[in-house]
């Protein structure tokens, strides 16, 4: 029973960290239509920056700045936002497919850098001893698990509220206008390039933040965590939950992580140890099947896109109705 509780908390905390990352992708794809196929790279940047900032000093690599965890998360988000802005500035003015190629390339390069820049990233072994929130509770597994779950849930909630606030603000309205008719928006003095770049960087920030929070929860990171599989997972989460819907992104994170974790358990029980590495590709198959099933039954995802309306649009007051133009 107690095991179940702490496993449940562990599972949900992990799932919610994916929800944060998925919220970031929703800003880029769901709200703005920007096709980022390098999600893993931006998540990795957030995770590594936060790890380097917060770990204690060590002889094996440069850095270990021993900063507070909150600063690490902020740094991770800002680093990923900066990288997104850079990639976006180079490619967003070009045709849409260039963004896909560039983000994919960026993710590959980032992975290689993590693998080879041993003096900072620890190379293939990665970075361990990343401080975990509520680390002093670690002796009591349940309290530790629950505290982390609450923290991650708060992070999801705050991210959700801030992003909802933004898509309902005049800024979000212009973003929608650009998506509906770029020429008309431009003729009204809005710069599609600027708004897209901002949305891309904002999405990158959220992905980096999610990556950082996840890294601190697990406690160690390595380049292998940030392979294209991660990008595939996050995309599946968004599509299954419902692109263009913030709640869908959160739900998708939890559901797909659930399928992933369960199929992982199944594989480890059904297959002998020597076949497990290969059998684990069945996990990807499982997500693929789930994806197909959802696309067949609910093409717009479980929750689907919501109609967003701006705030401040109260009904017209009576004295407003009589006036000359």
């Amino acid at each position: 029973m107690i095991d179940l509780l702490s496993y449940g908390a562990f599972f949900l905390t992990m799932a919610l960290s994916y929800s944060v990352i998925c919220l970031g992708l929703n800003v880029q794809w769901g709200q703005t239509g920007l096709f980022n196929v390098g999600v893993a790279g931006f998540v990795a940047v957030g995770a590594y920056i936060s790890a380097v900032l917060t770990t204690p000093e060590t002889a094996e690599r440069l850095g270990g700045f021993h900063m507070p965890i909150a600063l690490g998360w902020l740094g991770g988000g800002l680093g990923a936002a900066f990288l997104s802005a850079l990639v976006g500035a180079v490619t967003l003015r070009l045709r849409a497919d260039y963004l896909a190629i560039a983000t994919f390339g960026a993710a590959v390069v980032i992975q290689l850098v993590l693998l080879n820049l041993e003096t900072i990233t620890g190379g293939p072994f990665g970075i361990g001893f990343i401080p975990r929130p509520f680390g002093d509770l670690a002796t009591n597994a349940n309290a530790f698990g629950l505290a982390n779950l609450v923290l991650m849930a708060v992070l999801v909630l705050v991210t959700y509220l801030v992003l909802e606030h933004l898509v309902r603000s005049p800024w979000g309205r212009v973003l929608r206008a650009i998506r509906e008719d770029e020429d008309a928006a431009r003729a009204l003095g809005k710069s599609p390039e600027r708004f897209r770049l901002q949305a891309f960087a904002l999405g990158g920030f959220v992905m980096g933040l999610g990556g950082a929070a996840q890294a601190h929860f697990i406690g160690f990171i390595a380049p292998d965590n940030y392979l294209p599989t991660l990008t595939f997972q996050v995309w599946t989460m968004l599509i299954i939950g419902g692109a263009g819907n913030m709640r869908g992104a959160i739900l998708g994170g939890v559901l797909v992580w659930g399928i992933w974790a369960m199929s992982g358990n199944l594989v480890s029980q059904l297959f002998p140890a020597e076949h497990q590495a290969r059998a684990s590709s069945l996990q990807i198959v499982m997500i693929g099947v789930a994806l197909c099933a959802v696309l067949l039954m609910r093409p717009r995802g479980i929750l689907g896109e919501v109609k967003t309306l701006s705030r401040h649009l109260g009904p017209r007051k009576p004295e407003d109705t009589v006036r000359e133009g």
Partner: protein
Amino acid sequence: MTTRQGHALPPLQTTGLSRSFSGFKAVDGMSLSLHKSELLGLIGPNGAGKTTMFNMLAGSLPSSSGSICIHGRDVTGQDARTRIGHGMGRSFQIPKPFPHMTVLENVLTGAQNQTGERLFGACFQPGRVRRDEHAAVEKARGLLDFLLLSHLEGQMAAVLSGGQRKLLELARLLMADPDILLLDEPAAGVNPSLLEQIMDRIVTLNTQHGKSILLIEHNMQMVGRLCSRVVVMAQGRELAQGRPDDVTRDPDVIRAYLGDAA
């Protein structure tokens, strides 16, 4: 709807404006000036180059040669955004509403310099955002009243008829407070009852609000009623200009139009 005051120079002036599409000269050396508070008609048969001319004026299409000045400032190489900033706005021949946004939201999108449209403002300046937005909503509702769309403010723009879309586009454009309006066939495809009202609103904007308006129109009768001066374009060039009555009697103009009909 305030009007910028005190510009002695013509609000809009072009010299030798040209545009070719792979060798084909769609607009070929057009020099034209729009006077302050004038309602100038730009007419001509289909394919004469009127819309191409507008696209260059509005900054959505680069010109091949020639220059464009707004209130005496050369804006030839600048984008649509700067031109809106200088007080010039355009409507499209085929209206471009944002279909899945409400009528009111469509109009609000025309507002300029909104705190809430900056990411920083939207995050950190809630008070200013609310004030700006409140003022914008008031103004947008005033414009919707003026353009007879108030009863539709909460509807998605996708449900509007062709004529209502033209009105919506005009409202959205006026939201930016331009003093120069480029209107591309505001009456095309509009049913007769709405047509009178659109024409009436254009005249009001011109006479009561002092807007300088360049109006593309295919329909000579309508131009005759609205404009005191027209420029006739054919095959990318200026064919004639003057009072509508005189121009419609010009044999060259008649030939250009008949040629189009044949």
